């Protein structure tokens, strides 16, 4: 049987303030060709600087992905000609990648699986080419933007696993705060290497590299397509050629870009202008200390709190919501808070295509709302009515409740009404005691009528039974 072997290379832009080998500002989105200095333009006589923050950020990723850290490392030149490469070489780490032998864990249907990471290294990005007609224009804002390349071991078995692997990388990098990791905007880029071999063969098949994949879900689609394509060729007696293909968004297929001839000769060479970098114990320990709580630990914690797994996934996926959640969840009913954030609040954001910071929601108001709900002073239905006003106005919860005419019933008020209803409906009490459940429903209905539906059903139920039993 033919089985696929899949390895994935991911490039991630790090969001340091300045570029990795120059003092240029690291912000691709500024006006074209404004974040450029003489080093980015490879002016004659310039020498690379070295941004230590980039090394710290890369080290964080390596630690999060359980890599061995190379404490004595250097940089290398990778030589090739292309207009988007100003120096005619890229500064990268060929011999001494900052991280080796790591892994991430993914949850598959068969349980937890470790996806091995071969290496993580630091390098610089190229210019962004803008093709227009016969012309190609270059945006140097991207030249020298720091990247880490994360190379997986060839241990991924299908598109689904690839997707889970990428999601795990993305999640962790996002929570490490080292990158925006947006595939759509190019701050995370992914190439997949796919080959097929007979299950018992020790030799890997001929690999095809897929480039230009625009989202994590498309990675899965392209890999699965490629597996099927290769299967057909091999099963019909054909032979694979080593080639590079690109993913086509419209047809969701892969299209041949170029057949690889002899291996590329990048004439790697140690970069003589950057001395060896030594990561001493203090630097390493400080970096370990600075690593925030990561998604895996959060998931465990949320499970302990009794949050549903759907809500956990949603919270982690929306970092902004999760950050908000973590600022206040310890003080209140965290399950209710999670329900609100991943339910009505998220759908409000999605519907209006905005972010949490664009709403009027304050910590005070959400705390108050959750408290009212958890004390059953308002019903969840009432909560739903209140919430939109918390998102769109600056009013307090109390004012909104007043404005909506919602009377948060307190328990003593409720007790008075319940007692009145009991006194007025003695026959029903007798019927209930005789075992007629219907009689209780009638009594509840009477109280609801009196309270205009504002009584919390659960509280009411309990109170009614308690009072009847005391009689």
């Amino acid at each position: 049987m033919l089985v696929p072997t899949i390895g994935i290379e991911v490039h991630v832009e790090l969001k340091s303030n300045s570029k990795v080998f120059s003092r240029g500002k690291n912000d691709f989105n500024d006006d074209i060709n404004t974040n450029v200095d003489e080093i980015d333009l490879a002016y004659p006589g310039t020498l690379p600087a070295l941004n230590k923050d980039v090394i710290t950020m890369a080290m964080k990723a390596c630690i999060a992905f359980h890599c061995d850290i190379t404490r004595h490392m250097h940089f290398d030149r990778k030589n090739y000609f292309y207009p988007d490469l100003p120096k005619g070489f890229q500064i990268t780490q060929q011999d001494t990648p900052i991280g080796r032998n790591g892994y991430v864990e993914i949850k598959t249907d068969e349980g937890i699986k470790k996806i091995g990471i071969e290496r993580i290294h630091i390098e610089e990005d190229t210019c962004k080419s803008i093709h227009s007609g016969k012309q190609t224009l270059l945006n140097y804002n991207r030249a020298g933007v720091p990247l880490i390349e994360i190379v997986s071991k060839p241990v991924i078995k299908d598109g689904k696993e690839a997707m889970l692997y990428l999601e795990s990388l993305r999640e962790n990098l996002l929570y490490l705060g080292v990158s925006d990791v947006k595939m759509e905007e190019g701050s995370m880029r992914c190439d997949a290497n796919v080959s097929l071999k007979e299950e018992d063969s020790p030799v890997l098949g001929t690999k095809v590299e897929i480039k230009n994949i625009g989202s994590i879900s498309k990675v899965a689609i392209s890999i699965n397509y490629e597996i099927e394509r290769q299967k057909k060729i091999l099963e019909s007696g054909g032979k694979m050629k080593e080639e590079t293909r690109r993913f086509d968004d419209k047809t969701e297929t892969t299209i041949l870009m170029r057949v690889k001839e002899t291996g590329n000769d990048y004439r790697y060479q140690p970069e003589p202008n950057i001395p060896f970098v030594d990561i001493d114990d203090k630097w390493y320990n400080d970096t370990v200390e600075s690593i925030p709580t990561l998604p895996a630990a959060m998931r465990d914690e949320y499970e302990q709190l009794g949050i549903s797994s759907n809500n956990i996934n949603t919270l982690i996926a929306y970092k902004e919501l999760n950050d908000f959640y973590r600022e206040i969840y310890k003080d209140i009913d965290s399950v209710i808070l999670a329900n609100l954030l991943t339910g009505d609040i998220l759908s409000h954001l999605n519907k209006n295509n905005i972010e949490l910071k664009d709403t009027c929601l304050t910590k005070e108001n959400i705390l108050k709302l959750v408290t009212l709900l958890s004390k059953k002073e308002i019903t969840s239905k009432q909560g739903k009515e209140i919430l939109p006003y918390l998102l769109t106005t600056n009013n307090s919860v109390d004012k909104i409740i007043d404005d909506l005419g919602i009377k948060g019933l307190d328990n003593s008020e409720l007790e008075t009404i319940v007692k009145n209803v009991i006194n007025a409906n003695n026959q029903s009490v007798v019927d209930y005691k005789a075992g007629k459940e219907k009689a209780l429903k009638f009594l509840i209905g009477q109280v609801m009528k009196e309270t205009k539906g504002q009584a919390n059903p659960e509280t009411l139920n309990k109170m009614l039974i308690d009072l009847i039993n005391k009689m």
Partner: protein
Amino acid sequence: MTNYLDLELTEINKLLKAKKIKPIDLVEEAFARIKKDELNDFITLNEKAREEAKALENLEVDNLLFGIPIAIKDNIVTKGLRTTCASKMLENFDSVYDATVIEKIKAKHMIIIGKTNMDEFAMGSTGETSYFGNTLNPRDKSRVPGGSSSGSAASVASHEVVLALGSDTGGSVRQPSGFCGIVGLKPTYGCVSRYGLVAFASSLDQIGPMSKNVYENAVLLNAIAGLDEKDLTSVKQEKDFTSLIGKDIKGLKIGVPNYYMSDVIDIEVRNKIKEVLELLKKKGCEVDYIDIPNLEYAIPLYQVIALGEASTNLARFDGVKYGFLSDQEKLEDMYTYTRSIGFGAEVKRRIMVGSYVLSGENAKTYYYKALRLRHNIVENFKKAFKKYDLLLGPTNTNVAYPFNRHLDNVLQSFYDDLLTIPVSMAGLPALALPVGFNKENLPIGLQIIGNYFKEDEIYQLASAIESELKLDLKIGSDK
């Protein structure tokens, strides 16, 4: 014409201080001499030099280098004054920034007279690879001035300027200094910032001062040395390099590597060096002939390491951003024609050799093996410096030779650097000092090699020899 530029730096400084002369007088004299000499030693003259000199008139003469005319090798970038590297590729190139050494000499209010002719991209040792034609040796115009800092050496030797900056990768300051009879230093690797020096071989390149005498050389080194955050290989040290000049040399231990006195070296050169060694013994120095292993591999190592680095350093000249462009429909053609037309033959030859030694398996066979052997040479030099304060030998295997000698024999040109390259490989400082003339009246250079950052000790010995010999180095003087 005035003769202020024949004076010593300290004398010029006195005249400036006393307001007997103005910086503009020095500039006028420099331009007049350059015009008269016709050495083709400048590619570009600084048209703003007069203006800059005038602007100094109301300022206090606050240091020895104030108002002093200096020549800059044309591979050190200067904002507002084109930098060609003597190549068609950069024929009209204007830098957007000043090299760190330029910022430093400007802070001292020195006046840049112009950018000097050189071998294209510093690749050559005769000046003959320049796109702008040969620089003539002021001591004999039928002979090469040496290279690659050809114009810097010629302009100092002919007293067109007081001082000059050159760059030395395998001998490019020392060899022309020897051929023209001036003092030239290649500092310790890391002593002077390379920011703004157009790279040839990054692990070897150093900017060095060139001067008429030892003291002035040290003064210029003081001005340009020091840590620069823009050059990660530069090193912090705050020495006064003049401080040991004039101190007694008695008891100094001097080693003379046998490699430097072999019969490959011209007999007149060797004899002159031996005379100096005798003199030093008389002055109380201990002089021993010693063996330093593996120095004979320095030239092949250089061809692998320097050219390997050069091949990637020069990759940026592709017509996309600056410099010469051959506009073509196809991208491949743009690269091919831009680089084929823009670079001269020697540069292309070196790029090809450098690319070859880094290609595929060759990287292991040549490049990485060379790096290991280089490490070994470093260790061997270090061992020698455990026992000796300074090492001595000739700068060049011979004196300046006629033009066109190497045209048929490319490899031969590397052998000019037989005695300078081993020092470059180890990153050590070395100074070329004129110690006499051969029977054709051509200068012979002594090379003094110091331990890392011991430029002050080099100057101490060089100055002692200089004051013993009392040579008249002025061109046209009766010797």
